[in-house]
């Protein structure tokens, strides 16, 4: 176990102690005990920058199940480190924020911090694992802990609904992911992502390549809330705001992004990957940004905006994968897409985290998140407003904040798709910049709506549940820090470019930055390029839309609710529930008769099918014995008895006919020289007939209708079928005797070795006495059972 492993495991270890801290140290807010851990981890991970900025990596392996090739391999490169810093950095801020957000008295803090620590550890595990299976393990842990966090206020119905929905969707994706991982490891013969990436060119031709690609993308898209799986994220907003800020803006939803970025070296060779990642990303970007302005809940707006920004990053990763198809490193114009993706990833984490915290403050201080009741909070909450202003402007892509830079790079990348001449991008590629531009207009619109409807406008204190005032200082620290980062990264982007962005992009694209002269420089001013004009267009059109929003927002009502994806999901869950209920009802009738029909029909069908398939129809009569008159007569008697049993009008007749069958069997035993069997059969038949008579005698008088069995065609067909099949199989198997019996051994050794002359008895108690012992057991159990059933009668009241 290296330090790196301890770093990943430490949140889990701390989680064990949280309940004790909560229980025994009540005066101090439990969050304060948690806070040092992410800070220490953050500082620890910062030290790795010195390794990764020179494009170095560190790898540590601890064997877990070596015989299955499962090693807990921690692998730090630019990409993993970037995510680890985001997780620990924003994690520290979120925990600090939650200390002031969650009340020490009212909330179950020990639950909260256990879940949060579980999540943090799982997320670190996801981004730092090299082994696919270990990655999957941590992946599911994030789903699980996120489920717990969304349902934190589990007494609320909406929380439970949201938790269940996110669980169903992300676990569905997670299982698909597992399938994809397994296919991938089957193709490559290893679980290590690095080793798989090294043989990507061989994998591409494999027949399992496309299924693996699709399954893995399914997992990534569900986790990262891409179209059409984004629907869980708006419902996950029922979680406490620190959770929303942490999980549903900065970390968990980026696990899918991470996965796509991590596996780009393996799959980028496929056009399918580029089209799916790029296309779904841009579709999500547009769809969610289009739907964000209609939300009236502040967290709803932020949820949709998160979805759309994730779509943006995803589409950039898709376009970035194009760079694998153009060899020239120096003027490879698609590298910028990956750089933009990484940059926007950082930017989004900062401004969205701060915005969520701002919304939490507004909620906390006014008692509502409904934009229709809020307004004019600018003068009441000046600091919160400033933070929100910075965050929203950055989200809208305004200079001089960091969102502007990554949006410019996004436009650049999208415009450059037009230059691609492969995978029919030259015809359909035009969609990318156009949709991107429209989506940016909507992004601008909802950012300003968020700001305008909360902080500007008329101040209506009578509408608010609480008297609003500025948040306490402690609550403001985290959002202010994030807002400062937004400004710092906006003004000095090159602080990041060499330390974090270039190593991460380098890890995604497997090494374009390692060569000399491919330095990365992010600057505000590109000259009068097409991107700048696009941004100006966004501002102009976005402002116009914002000004006229009250006039055209009724357009959203035109969108039919029945066609929304949420409605579809609810219908699907509901329909599956009802469908499976109907299905179960339809075949589980509760009648033993029906189940017997199923069993016997299956019996007939399976045996008939296997006879037909095998096709061994040969029935030989070579070793059949001659039929004598005695056997014939006895057979006729037994047939007559059987028919009487079935056709009898009264049950008494049936019992006696059954007895006659039994006694005739005794005669058969006599005829076929089996004295012991004959003896036993006689006694047993007598006893069982008298037991039948006992049962008959105790039948209730009312239901003792002496009518005979009703004829049913289905029953007749099935019983005839079973008879025919069994007879056929007996005949066929008797015709194909391959070996002699082993009976000769018993004949020779019954007296020689076992000192007995009765061979049947010697076999029963000597050669194969084990069976006899357990038959005795069976009889003992039966006797005890009957005794218990007769004796232990519960009266009606007892249970």
């Amino acid at each position, binding site marked *: 176990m290296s330090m790196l492993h301890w770093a990943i495991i430490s949140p889990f270890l701390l989680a064990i102690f949280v309940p004790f801290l909560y229980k025994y140290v009540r005066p101090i807010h439990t969050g304060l005990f948690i806070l040092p851990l992410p800070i220490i981890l953050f500082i620890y991970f910062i030290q790795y920058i010195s390794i990764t900025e020179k494009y170095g990596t560190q790898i540590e392996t601890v064997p877990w199940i070596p015989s299955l090739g499962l090693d807990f391999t921690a692998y730090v490169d630019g990409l993993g480190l970037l995510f680890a810093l985001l997780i620990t950095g924003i994690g520290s801020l979120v925990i600090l924020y939650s200390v002031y957000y969650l009340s020490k008295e009212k909330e179950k803090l020990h639950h909260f911090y256990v879940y949060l620590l579980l999540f943090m550890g799982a997320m670190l595990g996801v981004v730092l694992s090299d082994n696919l299976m270990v990655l999957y393990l941590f992946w599911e842990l994030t789903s699980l802990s996120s489920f717990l966090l969304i349902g934190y206020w589990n007494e609320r119905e909406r929380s439970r609904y949201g938790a269940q929905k996110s669980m169903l969707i992300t676990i569905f994706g997670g299982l698909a992911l597992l399938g994809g991982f397994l296919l991938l490891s089957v193709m490559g013969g290893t679980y290590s992502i690095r080793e798989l990436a090294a043989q990507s060119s061989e994998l591409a031709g494999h027949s399992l390549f496309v299924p693996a690609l699709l399954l893995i993308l399914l997992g990534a898209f569900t986790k990262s809330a891409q179209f059409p799986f984004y629907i869980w994220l708006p419902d996950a907003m029922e979680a406490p705001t620190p959770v929303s800020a942490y999980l549903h803006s900065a970390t968990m939803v980026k696990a899918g992004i991470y996965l796509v970025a991590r596996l780009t070296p393996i799959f980028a060779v496929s056009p399918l990957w580029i089209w799916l990642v790029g296309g779904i990303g841009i579709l999500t970007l547009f769809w969610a940004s289009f739907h964000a302005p209609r939300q009236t809940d502040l967290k709803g707006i932020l949820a949709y905006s998160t979805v759309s920004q994730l779509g943006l990053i995803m589409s950039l990763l898709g376009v970035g994968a194009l760079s694998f198809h153009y060899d020239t490193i120096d003027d490879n114009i698609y590298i910028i897409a990956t750089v933009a993706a990484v940059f926007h990833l950082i930017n989004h984490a900062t401004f969205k985290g701060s915005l969520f915290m701002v919304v939490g403050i507004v909620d906390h201080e006014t008692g509502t998140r409904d934009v229709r009741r809020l307004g004019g909070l600018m003068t009441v909450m000046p600091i919160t407003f400033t933070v929100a202003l910075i965050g929203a402007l950055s989200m809208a892509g305004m200079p001089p904040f960091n969102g502007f830079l990554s949006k410019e790079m996004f436009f650049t990348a999208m415009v450059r798709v037009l230059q691609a001449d492969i995978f029919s991008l030259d015809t359909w590629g035009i969609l990318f910049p156009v949709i991107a531009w429209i989506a940016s207009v909507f992004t601008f619109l909802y950012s300003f709506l968020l700001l305008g409807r909360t902080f500007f406008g008329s101040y209506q204190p009578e509408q608010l549940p609480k008297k609003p005032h500025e948040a306490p200082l402690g609550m403001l620290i985290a959002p202010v820090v994030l807002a400062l980062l937004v400004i710092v990264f906006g003004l000095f982007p090159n602080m990041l470019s060499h330390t974090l962005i270039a190593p991460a992009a380098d890890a995604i694209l497997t090494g374009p930055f390692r060569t000399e002269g491919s330095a990365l420089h992010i600057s505000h001013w590109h000259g009068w390029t097409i991107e700048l004009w696009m941004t100006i267009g966004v501002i102009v059109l976005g402002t116009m839309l914002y000004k006229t929003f009250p006039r055209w927002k009724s357009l959203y009502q035109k969108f039919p609710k029945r066609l929304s994806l949420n409605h579809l999901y609810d219908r699907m869950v509901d329909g599956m529930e009802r469908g499976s209920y109907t299905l179960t009802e339809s075949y589980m009738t509760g009648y033993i008769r029906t189940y017997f029909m199923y069993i016997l029909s299956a019996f007939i069908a399976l045996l008939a099918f296997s006879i037909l398939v095998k096709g061994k129809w040969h029935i030989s009569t070579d070793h059949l014995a001659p039929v004598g008159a005695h056997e014939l007569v006895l057979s006729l008697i037994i047939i007559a008895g059987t028919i009487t049993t079935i056709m009898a009008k009264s049950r008494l007749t049936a019992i006696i006919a059954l007895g006659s069958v039994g006694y005739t069997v005794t005669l058969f035993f*006599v005829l076929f020289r089996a004295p012991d069997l*004959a003896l036993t059969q006689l006694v047993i038949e007598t006893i069982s007939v008298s037991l039948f008579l006992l049962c008959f005698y105790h039948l209730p008088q009312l239901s003792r209708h002496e009518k005979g069995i009703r004829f049913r065609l289905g029953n007749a067909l099935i019983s005839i079928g079973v008879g025919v099949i069994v007879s056929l199989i007996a005949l066929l198997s008797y015709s194909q005797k391959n070996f002699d019996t082993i009976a000769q051994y018993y004949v020779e050794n019954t007296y020689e070795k076992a000192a007995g002359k009765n061979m049947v008895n010697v076999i029963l108690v000597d050669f194969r006495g084990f069976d006899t012992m357990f038959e005795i057991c069976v009889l003992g159990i039966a006797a005890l059972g009957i005794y218990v059933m007769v004796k232990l009668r519960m009266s009606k009241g007892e249970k």
Partner: protein
Amino acid sequence: MTVIFNIALVILSIAMFCFLYRVVKGPSVADRVIALDAMGICLAGIVAIFSIILETSEFLEVILLIGILAFLGTVAFAKFLQKGVVIERERDR
């Protein structure tokens, strides 16, 4: 010789059929019980002749067993007809 035994078998079978007729037809239950008893004894005779045909002494126990069972069965039935139960319970329970 075998012919004679077979004739005996046929005669016993006919006798069985006659008793069977009584079992099916017999107006009272007592008729049926007597007929079943006689059928059991007939069966013992058939087994005896079979063991002569098969030239073995292994089936003599079967004959004895049929005798006991027929007796027990008839007694049980007779008691049932007379008292309504086969095994009486102790009075004071």
